[in-house]
């Protein structure tokens, strides 16, 4: 994916213990000033069926906040320990408070949507 000028792309990867299994992608939030969009999709692999990875890709308009994103991502993973998910975040300068809220909303939707 190409990143438009001015945006910053970050990737965080963790090993989870709570397999998400298969599910329809979940989308919460909107890309608007001070807000963000979070999408969670199953992480699919062509080599084997087991997915322990929780991969978080962040595209943000606010540059220079890598340490904060890392801390937010680590805390998120400590809370949920998801495995087999790809999380895409499109951020327009949301505060960590809003990021956490959207991430938890997305996980709640993921869990409630599962059979």
């Amino acid at each position: 994916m190409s990143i438009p000028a001015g945006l910053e792309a970050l990737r965080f990867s963790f090993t989870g213990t709570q397999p998400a299994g298969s599910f329809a992608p979940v989308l919460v939030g909107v890309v608007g000033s001070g807000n963000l969009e979070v999408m969670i999709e199953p992480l699919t692999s062509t080599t084997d069926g087991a997915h322990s990875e929780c991969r978080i890709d962040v595209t943000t308009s606010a540059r220079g906040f890598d340490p904060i994103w890392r801390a937010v991502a680590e805390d998120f993973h400590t809370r949920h320990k998801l495995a087999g998910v790809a999380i895409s975040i499109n951020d327009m300068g949301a505060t960590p408070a809003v990021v956490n809220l959207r991430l938890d909303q997305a996980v709640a939707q993921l869990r409630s949507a599962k059979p």
Partner: protein
Amino acid sequence: MEHMNWNTQQTNRQARQARAAEALGLQRQGKTVLAEAIATLLHAVIEPGDRVCLEGNNQKQADFLARALTQLDPARVHGLHMVQSVLALPEHLDLFENGIASKLDFSFSGPQAGRLAKMVSAGQIRIGAIHTYLELFARYFIDLTPRIALVCAQSADAHGNLYTGPNTEDTPAIVEATAFRGGIVIAQVNELVDTVPRVDIPGDWVDYVVLAPKPNFIEPLFTRDPAQISEIQVLMGMIAIKGIYGEYGVQRLNHGIGFDTAAIELLLPTYGEALGLKGKIGSHWALNPHPALIPAIEAGWVKSVHSFGSELGMEDYIRARSDVFFTGPDGSMRSNRAFCQAAGHYACDMFIGSTLQIDLNGHSSTATLGRISGFGGAPNMGADARGRRHASPAWLKAGAQAREGRGGVAAMPRGQKLVVQIVETFREHMQPAFVEKLDAWQLAEQAGMAIPPVMIYGDDVTHILTEEGIANLLLCRSDEEREQAIRGVAGYTPIGLGRDKRLVENLRDRGVVRRAVDLGIDQRDATRNLLAARSMRDLVRASGGLYQPPKRFRNW
């Protein structure tokens, strides 16, 4: 024994009045002076070096008199010492630029804070001190009594009786100090009437009345559009209601001016109701008539509201809810900043408001570099009332938490006021609200202040509330615990990331730090749907059409 003249002030006052009578001639009829003769009047009664109070309130402004004062001849009128609570208009500073005034004692300069800082560093203004409102009013009666008061009212009769309308604000304090100590009181009014609706200032305290060509300026300072309240503010409001209001049973309180507390006002009839807290919290308020309080009032939560000033558009609603607001026999509200400040200080169990910066000791300040703004009433609202002697459950509980297990002088049973600072960990543009060192230190150095301008001192702050939860500083027993409790709610700011995770978890176990989840709050419930009004239109509807917001808030 040598003869002493003990009445120089009265003699001088009469001399000023005689000069005015001569200069004005037929431009004066009794106490009424023609607007076009205002410069003649001011030149006649003001002497160089006079202390002058040019009524600049938080909301209403004696703008006609302000403009007139700037246009005087500096050769005749100069060296004035201005003593007024708020510097709101450009004219308030123009006076210093054109050599009419030289010294300033004040409380708040919000809109002019940047220019004031520049003029102070250029040596154009000497600041005596920056006060709280109550502190400045107190000095009007000790060593800063105005010689000239230029005040503002809605209407006057031929005797000089003034009707201020709902925005009485500072006028009684200013006029009382001036009129009873040989000073001259001049009022600008919007209309001259045969009979005023009620007498807010008795006519024999007023020397001259001028019909201003235009109604005085007034700012709707306390209107917050619910449409701008964020989910995070809803979350913080839920934490506040459950973790502090409900926890302490806070019945008597003052709210700050921001969106954080507007959110709380709009959550009382919904979230507060669901928690079963109606009748147990939020009954008596020292508060301007916030439109955001309408849904709570309509739902029967609010028994009384006493106000510092009024709020544009709320007049008819207030009139129709006279059980709640302080109103005169004419039906309109009477506010009074001095009394409401005293009420907020002595008779309220809690102050909750926002800030810009908090340090590791809990000192809190809105002072930022390049701006000399002062704090208005916040330091009196946000301070334990050391002179208080009456007890209430909330006050006793806070005091008991602060004193538990302590000996010596702290062993004496005593209550404490709840002083809550509510902030998001990051402000707009990702500015952290938590800092190692307040900007106030550098500002003090730049502006040559004796002490850093701190809004609320750390030893008065009892709780810091963020989206990360509540730090209860009453329960901290050492500076280290206090620091870790503050770091514990500072989220992803550098201060928050620098916390000792083990110590913070320890404080959580003891209830010193409480997260939303610890309070049984699911942050996913924090949606705007929980607000009792989500737009200005909702507020109007809730008021049964009685609230009439100013045009700029009519966005439907």
